[in-house]
């Protein structure tokens, strides 16, 4: 057995693989949203991490203050955060499209600081616990490892949502408008498509994905005002590795890097926090447009 050869018990390896897949699912969902937003708005959405955190917090608030459980929250919280995002787009981001990427990055970075600051002021820096929904508690013994049900659920949902978004963009009529809008929005509008509205909805979709990731993450990590800050740095590295603007690239790279991180944790734990950035540096040197990016 190869596992024995490397002196690593298979349980540890598979356990880390699963953990890697979960992180990878989060990376995939977040970088997919970032890629969508970048394609259509030409803005690098630095507020993505803060909006992910908001997803987790809104879900926690719905439960704590209104008693709304996880399942409706899974739809409701992303919807609320998406509406908030669309208001930001209409009132602020939309003024920057004709300027350099840098301005959008600065604005969204500022927004991220404000949003995270506001939640820190209200809730402090201690994390809150979001209980795993009843039906997904416990786990399944697969013989070679113990699979926590909720974690399996997260991976499945993330994969379905990623595939759904990909299908929507590549195979539907509205998706074809989205692709065309990424390439030449002016002409698309001259064909009769309301491009400004489409841009707002795209931002809403990207933000909604971030918030959904937050809702899914809430029972695994603690709900914490800075949870997005830690996440977003890794996700940006993922996006750089995958290549900005490629949906499939975002999904595949996200999952892959999650798994790579997991394996690194088994074989060389010291590097597990940095492996993504090492890969990013290598990709930038050898293929600056990213693995899936076009020149």
């Amino acid at each position, binding site marked *: 057995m190869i596992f024995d050869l490397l002196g690593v018990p298979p349980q540890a390896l598979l356990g880390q693989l699963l953990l890697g897949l979960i992180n990878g699912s989060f990376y995939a969902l977040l970088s997919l949203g970032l890629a969508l937003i970048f394609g259509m708005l030409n803005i690098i959405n630095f507020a993505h991490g803060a909006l992910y955190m908001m997803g987790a917090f809104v879900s926690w608030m719905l439960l704590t203050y209104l008693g709304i459980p996880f399942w409706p929250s899974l739809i409701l919280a992303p919807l609320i955060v998406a509406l908030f995002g669309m208001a930001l787009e209409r009132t602020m981001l939309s003024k920057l499209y004709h300027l350099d990427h840098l301005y959008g990055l600065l604005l969204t970075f500022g927004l991220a600081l404000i949003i995270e600051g506001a939640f820190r002021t209200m809730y402090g820096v201690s994390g809150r616990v979001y209980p795993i929904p009843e039906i997904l508690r416990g786990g399944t013994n697969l013989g070679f490892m113990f699979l926590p049900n909720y974690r399996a659920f997260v991976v499945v949902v993330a994969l379905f949502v990623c595939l759904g978004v990909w299908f929507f963009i590549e195979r539907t009529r509205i998706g*074809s*408008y989205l*692709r*065309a809008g*990424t*390439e*030449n929005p*002016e*002409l*698309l*509008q*001259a*064909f*009769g*498509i*309301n*491009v*400004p509205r489409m841009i707002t909805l795209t931002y809403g979709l990207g933000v909604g994905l971030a918030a959904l990731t937050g809702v899914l993450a809430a029972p695994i990590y603690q709900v914490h005002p800075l949870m997005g800050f830690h996440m977003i740095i890794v996700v940006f590295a993922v996006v750089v590795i995958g290549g900005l603007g490629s949906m499939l690239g975002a999904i595949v790279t996200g999952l892959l890097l999650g798994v790579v991180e997991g394996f690194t944790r088994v074989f060389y734990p010291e590097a597990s926090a940095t492996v993504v950035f090492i890969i990013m540096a290598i990709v930038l040197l050898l293929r600056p447009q990213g693995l899936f990016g076009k020149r």
Partner: protein
Amino acid sequence: MTLEASESERPGAHPADSAPVELSVQDLHAYYGESHVLHGMSFDVPRGEVVTLLGRNGAGKTTCLKCIMGLLRQRKGSIRFSGTELIGMQPHRIARLGLGFCPEERGIYASMTAEENLLLPPKIQEGGMSVEEIYRLFPNLKERAKSQGTKLSGGEQQMLAIGRILRTGAKTLLLDEPTEGLAPVIVRQIGDIIKRLRASGYTIVLVEQNFQFASTVADRHYIVEDGKVMEMIPNADLHANMDKLREYLAV
């Protein structure tokens, strides 16, 4: 028709024909930032006619089409399309009134196949052509349906760019230099298509530099220079006005 000779001396005047004016541009001014590029352009396009805007590079022909479509926001004056004022209107609303736009650079989407490009523009009115009809008009496109849009030859891309707006039901087409850089045999093919479209009732505004080609398809020509319409020449009088034309179009 005897009136037409005097019409040609009043650029932008309403035509004497009984056909109602489909598109009327009056005293149009346009700006790119600080620079003033159209200086009071006026002309009329009667319904069912093929009208050209003839002029040198940089005369303002393309800018004029962009103003009509609302793609250039800094514009003043009046543009009326079947009675509706277009100044101040957003491009997608303008398109939905029944205008089809084929840009100079053709605007074929690289991320889509030829067929996806063809199917991209939404239907805006009843009475557009079916995909089969478009393929009958442009048999090449059917053969290349699954190819990436930008992998098509220049002529095929032009046909795709025209075919694409025939599906939508738009009955007034703005074509920006559809023959630019194409082989004579393709130019002739595109000329035939324009004549067939005219015969089936389309109104067409054609931006051209090639007046030889323009003379084979158009009913009237507006000579554009320095952001103004200098003259209207009915196609029948084109040869009588050759010297003047050469002067306007000479590089």
